[in-house]
């Protein structure tokens, strides 16, 4: 069989899920193009420090480094794999209805800030989407001050650049991700004043403790938790439940935060405010899956919580197949469950996408592990929900959309005006979500705020795009000149 007659699998995203998918598709005998917008594989999780810094012992900073390194090597050096770094998928072009093939993949290749990027078009036999998730941060007064970081950004600086964000840091928000962030900061030399989990201990324990007989299968996870707990204890860092940073203050940069006790619905307990001097705050309220590509591919989404329609994940079957022909999904876009779960999903997706036998014996333990990880993800979601009354700490002048400077009061006013109250009209008149990040940061927040106010969206109708805040037909910015020039097609393939 000539190389080109083989099944061609395109994998988007080279984090744990994408790398695993590429390796499994290669094992299944397919030809693989693995692409990522970043320069190096690893995604958010295995952030490779730049070469100059890597000389030391990166494995100290990265859990699961060795597995990652092995998979990375297997994939990137494989003769049937083309690795495309700095390659952004900007559009997916769906075939005609009824045509059973995946969408055509439109890519721009080259450094995002450089001139001379080139446009490429790939026509794969199967497409694996593993674009991951990005930090979710709910706004609070002062969150736009310098010195307030998303937990992910702080961790990236610590891991990737070995930079310390501050000497006196509060980490706040919700979810288990607060712990590895604390670990990264402590190891990089920051003093962590406290770690604040917004959900009260009751919510967290109820979520984690659901169906306790299943917990035995998570011994690895529990051991990891115990390790974090020990680390915090060693550094005398308190971990408080039911508290949140409700305001950051400072003159030109954060100097102190106000923390407050929260009720289970995240409303602030009056009188519980405390002022804490800091020089940096790291905030995380979980993750938002990057759904623009699955939405563009026409994949059905599932909404685990009917009360917050903005919260959505890609619907997949037992083989990680989406509802869109030839399109598979793996990793955080199917549910936030962490890197090991993403890897397992990637292996299953890649094998199926590569045409591997559906009854291969290796799949049995993988599927079991995947199901367990999914159950674990549900546990996480139950233990760390976003309380319905979170917006109580917003003020009219709190900026919600940072790109466009749209304040909470302006959004409320626009949504309260019946004649302009559809979500789309509110966005167009307040410009929330219309800036350079295209609502990646504020989209789910705005959707949540509008849904809480009962704003009607456009009806689902033929000819009206879906009302999800993830509808972004242009998945990445493209320069006008790049768009105007003819793309390279697959025949001119470069390796």
């Amino acid at each position: 069989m000539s190389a080109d007659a083989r099944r061609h699998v395109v994998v988007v995203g080279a984090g744990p899920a994408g790398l695993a998918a590429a390796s499994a598709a290669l094992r299944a005998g397919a030809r693989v193009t693995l692409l990522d917008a970043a320069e190096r594989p690893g995604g958010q999780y295995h952030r490779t420090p730049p070469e100059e810094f890597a000389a030391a012992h990166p494995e100290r900073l990265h859990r699961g480094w060795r597995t990652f390194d092995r998979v990375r090597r297997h994939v990137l050096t494989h003769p049937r794999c083309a690795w495309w770094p700095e390659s952004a998928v900007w559009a997916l072009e769906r075939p005609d209805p009824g045509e059973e093939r995946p969408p055509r993949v439109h890519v721009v290749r080259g450094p995002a800030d450089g001139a001379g990027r080139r446009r490429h078009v790939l026509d794969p036999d199967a497409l694996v989407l593993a674009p991951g998730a990005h930090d979710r941060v709910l706004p609070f007064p002062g969150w736009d001050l310098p010195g307030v970081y998303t937990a992910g950004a702080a961790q990236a600086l610590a891991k990737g650049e070995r930079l310390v964000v501050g000497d006196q840091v509060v980490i706040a928000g919700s979810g288990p991700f607060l712990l590895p962030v604390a670990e990264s900061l402590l190891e990089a030399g920051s003093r962590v004043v406290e770690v604040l989990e917004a959900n009260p201990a009751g919510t967290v324990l109820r979520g984690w403790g659901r169906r306790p007989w299943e917990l035995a299968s998570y011994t690895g996870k529990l051991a990891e938790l115990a390790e974090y707990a020990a680390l915090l204890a060693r550094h005398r860092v308190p971990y408080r439940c039911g508290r949140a940073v409700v305001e950051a203050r400072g003159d030109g940069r954060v100097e102190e935060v106000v923390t407050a006790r929260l009720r289970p619905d995240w409303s602030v307990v009056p009188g519980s405010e405390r002022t804490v001097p800091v020089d940096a705050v790291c905030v995380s309220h979980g993750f938002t899956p990057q759904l623009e590509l699955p939405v563009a591919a026409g994949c059905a989404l599932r909404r685990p919580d009917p009360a917050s329609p903005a919260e959505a994940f890609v619907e997949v079957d037992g083989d990680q197949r989406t509802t869109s022909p030839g399109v598979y999904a793996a990793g955080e876009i199917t549910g936030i469950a962490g890197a090991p779960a993403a890897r397992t999903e990637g292996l299953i997706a890649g094998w199926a996408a590569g045409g591997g036998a559906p009854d291969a014996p290796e799949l049995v333990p993988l599927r079991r592990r995947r199901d367990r990880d999914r159950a674990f993800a549900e546990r996480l979601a139950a233990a760390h929900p976003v309380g319905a009354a979170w917006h109580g700490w917003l003020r009219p002048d709190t900026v919600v959309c940072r790109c466009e400077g749209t304040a909470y009061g302006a959004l409320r006013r626009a949504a309260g005006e019946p004649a302009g109250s559809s979500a789309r009209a509110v966005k167009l008149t307040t410009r929330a979500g219309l800036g350079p990040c295209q609502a990646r940061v504020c989209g789910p927040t705005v959707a949540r705020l509008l849904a809480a106010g009962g704003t009607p969206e456009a009806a689902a109708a033929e000819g009206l795009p879906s009302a999800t805040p993830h509808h972004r037909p242009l998945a990445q910015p493209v320069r006008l000149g790049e768009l105007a020039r003819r793309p390279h097609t697959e025949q001119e393939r470069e390796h």
Partner: protein
Amino acid sequence: MRGPRVAVLGAGIVGAACARELARAGLPVTVLERGGPAAATTAHGEGNVLVSDKGPGPELALARLSLALWPRILDEIAERRPETARAVEWDPKGGIVVAATDEGARELERFAAGQRAAGVTAEPLDASGLADAEPHLTRDVAAAVHYPQDAQVQPAAAAAALLADALDAGAELRTRCEVLGPVTRSGRLAAVRTSQGTVEADAFVNAAGPWSGGLAARLGAPVDVRPRRGEVLVTAPLPPTVFHKVYDADYVGAVGSDAEDLRASAVVEATRAGTVLIGSSRRRVGFDDRLRPEVLSVIAAKALRLFPCLDGVPVMRAYGGFRPYVPDHLPIIGPDPRLPGLWHATGHEGAGIGLAPGTARLLADLLLGRTPPLDPAPFRADRPAALGDPSPTGGAA
């Protein structure tokens, strides 16, 4: 309030303008909208209010009427709600049409002469005048005409302002209320069945945009309104680069064209937020909203021919909608003689934003038995093209 009860079906810009005109005339008005207001076609296009792209004829007459009404309406709204009126971003910035080839130049000059005869201000620009008006425009231009009357609005805000003014005048808005079918009494449309129960009225105005054809069929009096896809590119915010609406003369051809396949022409304009809108394509693909990169590519190439300096500018977003069109490219405004009680205000294709005020005036005049300021006959609902007559004179080929 007295007079006939009116139900306006659809809260896009056309429905909003009609509701306003009728409510301000003192009629009891209810607006029935399937989703939220101003969220459909009106929020998926651009906001050009143009005379420059229209040759002499009924559409130009309607455009001139609308152009005269827009600032008056906005002044009235501003008296009651200054903030709402400001959000409309009315900007009479003027349009500049350029032709690249000598043949195009001759065609443009002929077209402009015809418009001038019909009362449009169309001033030829020489090279230095053009360079003053648009310093970043290509110098490779065979002819250019300045249309100082062309203006621009933010369409969703414009529709919201018209609707807010209607509500202030006593109109009622029902959202998430889909019109499902007719209730007829002795041959007359007496009520409509909706997802929220039956709504009675004396007159029903079909303002359902590209869905008007389907809605009219549901009500038992089909009209031939079809969707025509259009896409727009939005750049990242830029320092002031484009000062007018600038478009190539092909646009005029594309608007009136009957070609099934892709027509694209560059219309380049800046918004108040600093982004530059680049439109747009015209394709007949039913309600197929799949992104077509080659279409965006054509739009981009055409825009770069006008403004080569935009080559490195990032496009942040692309969106598109479906223009509601009738095969003879004229809207349908007026009563439906086949079903008394049913009225239409639809089929404005790529000009519904600009034409909304004139449409509403015409409709209200007809409904109230006043004399309209222009001849309503070309827009009537029972003309062959509106009824889907496949004969060549019907234009539905």
